[in-house]
């Protein structure tokens, strides 16, 4: 179990090694944050303890830390670090349909999604961002240890769909990796839900080449991978259905991209027979770019 994540980790690290550390722009605090500096190292609004300082008459009384003050004669106020780092939540679809590849030459869609998410997390954490996996991590982390944690989660996560419903802070950003083969309406509902929190993010769509090209010939009995309620489908001459299928698949993609553009979620499509670098670059540009401001 642990060797597979290790393998993916190495792949992801080597992928991320080629990129400069890039700070995702802080959308919410854009006005006050100096470009590229993330560790504020000064007291401010945040969740993490920063320092105790003497009580000043300008402070509100309820900010006094009574536990600390009780140990001496002076009153102390507890300051938290001014947190401006973005928190990025990942979700990698782990359904049976993702855990499939058409050929032993390509990684499974799930693996490729994991690798891309890990690489992205590695880059983001190097720049000081905090990352987490939706429904799996207890709280966002940063730094080396955080990367280990997030990578492990990404690698072994079941990626259940209802993880998407778990509680996330407002104004976080999301990276959702899936094949988005469900009906676009389902996804429209989910994305609208996120936008209402408010939270925005990037969609990573992973496609197996066979899904796009439908290379099958002859008599085929097609079924959904793993356990599924979908009935099996027997085709007498698979090659005859190829053109129709391709048309349908393309239409599905178009509907999907139209829908996401409308909602302001960039959709990055990656086919598993291509090197993952391109997709990673696109993901970065999307996360740091203007389009999701």
């Amino acid at each position: 179990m642990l060797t597979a994540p290790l393998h993916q980790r190495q792949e992801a690290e080597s992928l991320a090694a080629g990129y400069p550390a890039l700070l995702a722009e802080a959308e919410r605090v854009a006005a006050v944050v100096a470009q590229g500096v993330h560790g504020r190292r000064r007291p401010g609004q945040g969740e993490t303890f920063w320092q105790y300082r003497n009580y000043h008459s300008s402070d509100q009384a309820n900010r006094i830390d009574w536990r600390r003050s009780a140990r001496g004669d002076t009153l102390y106020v507890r300051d938290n670090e001014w947190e401006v780092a973005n928190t990025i939540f990942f979700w990698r679809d782990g359904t049976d349909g993702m855990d499939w590849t058409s050929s032993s030459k390509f990684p499974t869609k799930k693996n490729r999604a994991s690798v891309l998410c890990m690489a992205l997390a590695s880059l983001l954490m190097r720049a000081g961002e905090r990352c987490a996996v939706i429904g799996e991590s207890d709280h966002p982390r940063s730094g080396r240890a955080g990367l280990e944690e997030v990578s492990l989660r990404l690698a072994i996560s079941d990626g259940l769909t209802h993880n998407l419903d778990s509680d996330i802070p407002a104004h976080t950003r999301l990276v959702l990796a899936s094949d988005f083969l469900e009906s676009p309406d389902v996804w429209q509902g989910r994305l609208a839900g996120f936008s209402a929190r408010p939270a925005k993010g990037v969609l990573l769509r992973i496609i197996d080449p066979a899904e796009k090209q439908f290379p099958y010939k002859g008599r085929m009995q097609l079924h959904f991978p793993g356990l599924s309620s979908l009935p099996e489908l027997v085709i007498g001459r698979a090659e005859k259905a190829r053109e129709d299928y391709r048309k349908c698949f393309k239409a599905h993609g178009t509907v999907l991209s139209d829908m996401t553009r409308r909602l302001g979620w960039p959709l990055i499509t990656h086919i598993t027979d291509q090197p993952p670098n391109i997709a990673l670059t696109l993901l970065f540009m999307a996360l740091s770019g203007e389009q999701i401001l």
Partner: protein
Amino acid sequence: MTLGPLTFLAPLALLGLLALPLVWWLLRVTPPSPKRQPFPPLRILQDVITDEETPDSTPLWLLLFRLLMVALIAIALARPVFLAPETETNRPLVLIIDDGWDTATNWNAAIEEAENLVTEARRKNFEVMLATTVAPAEMPIFAPAEEALRAIKSLSPKALPPAHSDVATALDNTDITGANAVWLSGSILTAGTDELAIALNTAAHSKRLVPAGEAKPLLPGDIEETANGFRSVWHRLDTRSPRTTEITALGRDGQVLARGDISFAPGESRTEVKFELPAELRNRVSLLRPSDSASAGSVRLLDDSWGRPLVGIITAARDSGSPLLSEPFYTRTALTPYADLFTGSLDELLTVNPGVIVMPDEARTDTPELRQYVEDGGLLIRFSGPKVAKRPDNLLPVRLRGEGREFGGALTWEDPQMLAPFESNSPFFGLPIPEDVTVTRQIMAEPGARTDAHTWARLQDGSPIVTSSTFGNGRIVLFHVTAGPEWSNLAIGGLYVDMLRRMLEMARSTPSRSSDGSGNWAPERVLTGFGHLTNPGIDARPIPEAELIDTEISRQTPPGLYRQGARRRALNVVKDPESLKDIGKLPGVLTDTYGQTEKRSLRGILLALALLMLGIDALFALFVSGRQVNLRPRRIHEKIIPLMLVSIFIAPLPSHAAEAGYDPEALELHLAYIKTGHSGTDSLSEAAMLGLVDALNRRTTIEPVGVRGVDPETDPLVYYPFLYFPVKRDASALSDVASAALNDYMAGAGTIVFDTQDAGDQSFLEGTTHPGLARITENLDIPRLIEVPEDHVLTKSFYLIQVFPGRWANGQVWVDRNVNGAARDGVSSVIIGSNNWAAGWAQDDDNQPLVDLERDIVNQREMSLRFGVNLAMYALAGNYKSDQVHAAALVERLGRQELQPRNPGPSPRNGDNE
């Protein structure tokens, strides 16, 4: 059923072809099964596929392919046989089978061939005339094939040569003109081979099968003892190809004594193999045989004439300075090529226990030891001379008349006498007598019937010159002349050598009373055609003594071992391998090699083809159903190649580490004990070794720096002078690795001190085996042991001690019996005791003794430590102290005070100052 050149042996199976239409129909009806394929975007696909699936039928070419496959199987099951037109002649069969020893190596092929031929004849309902060549019937007749088949099944090769001319004669009396003749021949050419070929030519069609070169027997040639073994010559008949095989030398009980490889280069018919064997083993060799040539002709039986006996020659104390005049010189020279000689006084000779003792007159003696030697079965060859002439003794075969007689001298009347031809009851019978052997002086035997019976050789006037009689279990032979040329020139001729050799043969067999060199040779074990020894059959007859040398092997005198009393003679199949010729090609007869008939059956080929098609069909089936077949085993490569690389680079690492540099352990001396895994025992051993280290450092120049507990399985042992090995009664056996390591350690001059630590229990364990020690020493090379003798080095290597106490003092201590153990400098490889020395030596951190001792002797702890010091000194310095360094103290103990008693008692001295 016959169809052109094809014959079906089971034509009913062709009905299987009727199933073809059924197969056709089935294949048409059943489409190829769909390929199951997981496909995630199934939902999208669902929208596309709306029409009903259209079944895809099997393509026509695959249909035909499969029909062909089924047809092939049906045809194969019908057992088709492809018959060449030449054998398709419908005539009775004349079958000649060579069943001599030269066919034995090829017997299976020959019998198979015969059965095939006769089965075919039976199928065609023809009669068969079967003739074997070793013991041919007077009048072979045509008989039903069924009978011939039964006869063939009961055939086996004989250990005799084929008698081709007899068969030829028999065939001449028979009309075989209307028959096919097949001769399954052996390998050797006999006198009648050509006759038989001519006789067979009268048949309508004749064919001869010969074995391939590899299947022809190898022939043993001369065999000769060498100083450190023997060598044996081997011949072969067919020289075309190279041939390599192994010669096995077997003992009398069938035990393999030696193996040697022989190889013939192409064109070479003779090769030689050398065996290196100690004389004792060599003399036990009784049979040689090649491993791949199972034939009586390839077996070399050895008899009494084999082996080099050990001959002792007694020399007188005052041997003259001129060797040519010394009496034993001629005997020694004559015997050197045939025996291992040992010269010395009688006492020295008796210790090596020679088979023969030669006693010249000069060294005449009749001590009880010599009498005992002869009575126990030794052979004493003695020569006459002035001493015997003057005073006869008891060790004589016949009574002597005292003074001898002289002839041919200046003052005698008679001429020098020549030898008379040997009589048939003499062991010298058959030796040619040269003209120039004369006797000028001899010792006379008392005439009488007894003397006559015991005489082996006479002069022409009838007076005995060699007499012999049994004596106890042994035998005495007396030459009535001197061993040298003084009385006769017998000693300087070739006859002398031959006579002595004949006597050597007697020395080997256990002498018995009955044997007096006469009687018949009875067959004891005879050879089968395959070269195995078995009991003689009813045909075998004894051979009279006189005929043995010229006996040819025959049914009455089969090859094998013959016995006369205690003597044994071998009658080998092949006497002169050079004279045997390969049978080769014969004029007028078609010659072929064995093993041709079988290939005509097409069944195997057809079935193989059908199986191959079945395999291909599986691929086709995949192809038709749209499955991609990836035949490249990519995944395996991915995993195996790194594994192989890793194993290549990792595996040699430990040995590199071991070779690199030296072990620091080797720089300083450590004492070591063997870890038993029992914590109490181990900690006591460790404390004991520390105590001993302390004592050695304080008292001697041995300065060990520490103690090691070792596990013989894993730790290197070579650095430790001795290993203290406490052995409990419940100790388990050592592993093979540990045993090997300890054996290496002992072979490399290490000493293992076994301590059973149970001397206190000896009173009730007396005489029982120590189970732990028995298990542990099971695979160790423990030498023969002896209780430490009083003068053993262990008693004086540092202190003078006679007891070796530990917790107890009365346990026995055992060491190697052989004090001068080779390459060990006299150090015993094991010391076994039960005194629990660890208890005596053990001390705690404050140098206080750990264990209470039993006080069997005064000052037991000190004596125990002294033994420990002696032990370490002994293991390190060997027999260095076995010399007389303690002479002074020893003499003083004897009470002789004048030798300056410098040390008033046993005292420690520095061992390295000597």
